[in-house]
């Protein structure tokens, strides 16, 4: 039997299939520019001091972990606006249960993960069974969580035992535990998305749910799992934050803008809001971009409010860099 060869040259075909997402270029660019500005206007530590570089990553852990969950949900063409308050409730509940006693840690951790499970399950069910728009559904749950938190706590509550602070501050050798855990989360996220049936199905559900359904994919179940995983990552972020802060406060989640930031980093990293496309490494690049900006702004002594402005502008410009070429009208 003869082999049929294509009409395209090998070169063109390869060029088409290698597409490095713009976010990595941005990451390198921003790193270099920051380093340069730092050299000129400050003490040039970004490029020279490994401790600073490490610090950039550590600052990014909380956002980084929850961004993985958000990435999964976005790939499924859904969204999760409840992560910020999930982080908050984790922080206060874990801190409250622990009350500074190491003995309580094994009680606190399953408890908060249990809460995360309930939140994720609720989100998933409301979206798939009640057919409520994900934006509204998760907005609603976030308000419910907010209410529950504020009804029971109004300030710093309880405390975290020193042993638990290992999560936030400990190191294994030269590497902080928090970074190790974050990388683990990314590896798990990567594995789920690219090496499991669940991941393959999730891309299908987000890319074209009708095609997925016709192919026998259980679309509801897949999406519910994605939401549960997302809430779990939020819980993990919350635990990290509380281990650093030593006591949980209700405003932790919304103050850090974890909901909108996790969405922004995912989109900058190449995940499409419309679903079916994206990966965790791009999100990580997006998270690191935010981290570098934060640190370099600090080094340069940039006014914190200007930081906010610049961050907003960068979000828009980064996404614009790849939407500008699209032919479809945006909404």
């Amino acid at each position, binding site marked *: 039997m003869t082999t049929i060869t294509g009409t395209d040259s090998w070169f063109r075909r390869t060029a088409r299939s290698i597409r490095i997402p713009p976010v990595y270029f941005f990451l390198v660019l921003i790193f270099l520019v920051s380093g340069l500005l730092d050299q000129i206007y400050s003490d040039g530590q970004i490029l020279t001091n490994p401790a600073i570089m490490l610090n950039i990553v550590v600052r990014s852990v909380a956002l980084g972990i929850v961004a993985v969950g958000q990435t999964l949900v976005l790939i499924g063409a859904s969204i999760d606006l409840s992560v910020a308050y999930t982080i908050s409730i984790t922080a206060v509940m874990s801190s409250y249960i622990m009350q500074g006693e190491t003995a309580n840690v094994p009680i606190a951790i399953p408890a908060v993960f249990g809460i995360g499970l309930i939140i994720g399950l609720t989100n998933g069910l409301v979206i798939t069974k009640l057919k409520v728009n994900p934006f509204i559904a998760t907005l609603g749950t976030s308000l419910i969580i907010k209410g529950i938190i504020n009804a029971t706590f109004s300030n710093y509550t309880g405390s975290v035992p020193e042993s638990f602070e290992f999560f936030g501050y400990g190191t294994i050798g030269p590497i902080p535990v928090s970074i190790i855990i974050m990388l683990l989360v990314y590896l798990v996220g990567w594995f789920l998305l690219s090496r499991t049936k669940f991941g393959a199905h999730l891309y299908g559900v987000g890319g074209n749910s009708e095609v997925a359904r016709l192919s026998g994919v259980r679309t509801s179940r897949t999406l519910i799992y994605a939401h549960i995983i997302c809430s779990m990552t939020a819980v993990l972020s919350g635990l990290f934050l509380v281990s650093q802060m030593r006591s949980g406060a209700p405003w932790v989640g919304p103050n850090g803008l974890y909901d909108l930031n996790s969405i922004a980093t995912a989109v900058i990293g190449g995940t499409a809001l419309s679903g079916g496309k994206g990966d965790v490494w791009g999100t990580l690049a997006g998270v690191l971009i935010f981290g570098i900006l934060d640190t370099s702004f600090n080094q340069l002594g940039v*006014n914190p409010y200007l*930081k906010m402005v610049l961050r907003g502008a960068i979000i828009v410009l980064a996404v614009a860099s790849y939407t500008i070429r699209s032919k479809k009208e945006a909404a």
Partner: protein
Amino acid sequence: MASSTVASQNAFVTALQALWAWIRKIPPVYPVFILIFLVLGFLNPVKYQSMNGIMTFLRTASPLAILAIGEMFVLAIGGFDLTVGAIVTFVVLVSSKLLANDPANAAPAILIMLVAGVLIGLTNGLIVSYLKVPSFITTLGMMLVVRGSALYYVGGAPQGYLTDNWRAFGRNYFENVPVFERVPYALIVLIVIAIISIILFNRMNFGKEILAIGDNVRASQLSGVKVRLVRVLTFVLCAVFAIVGGIVIGGYGGVNVTIGEGLEMQAIAACVVGGVLLGGGKGSVMNVIIGAFTLQAIVNLLNLLGLPKPYTDVVQGLIIIGAVAYVGLSSQKKQ
């Protein structure tokens, strides 16, 4: 004798059926609002059954309604505007500095704010239309830009107080009005905005084109509609209304840094409760106003029942989900 009774019975039945058909068409938000308000009146007659009290309620509820109307325009065209809350923060903080504690500056300060609103809306609209960035992301980024700019301008803390004349829009009342006793300025502002919006949305080509675009962009393009122009103007309108809402809110509440946070979500919620479809193609100014009133009424009701604020959040969340689920499931049944 028997036949005429039967005939009149039939006429009666037909009339009832017609009435029932009309009732079924009423958007659910109206009976819900009336119900809640009646309960409020029952629980606290002094406040909610007196003209005075009703006007006070309207003063509190009007700003959200103003914001919701602006948001409605953007939702109807199929987009999101998340900058609304940040714009309110912007108005309050920047005005506090612009006014420099001098009432004479009120008019120019307001003018500057309105111009700023136009610029913010233009930026939003142009980015979505020409850079093709989805409005969710655009307004998310712009939210940071606007809020950050405001905080930067005032150096993180209010730079003065808001003068009384500036605050009039949010705080004062027209006194000694026949029948209504006293009418809050805020309500008048809302009424003016509502009238303008109803004309724009229901009685002008503008509104019809917005709905067509939100419903089917391609068909609108092919019918000759200037999609991009309409879209940009919609964002401008939303931003300007947010400025107006901010002036009223600032007038009522005074200056503080966290004012405005979360308002965009509340505005969207008010719209959704008022029957606006996320994704575009549907909208109604009156329904959205009542939606906003309903949300406020619920807050008040829960306060009245002695439930502290946190529970109102829970209930709000449940109601928002419930409203959308209800609309979604019932429209499925129609098909």
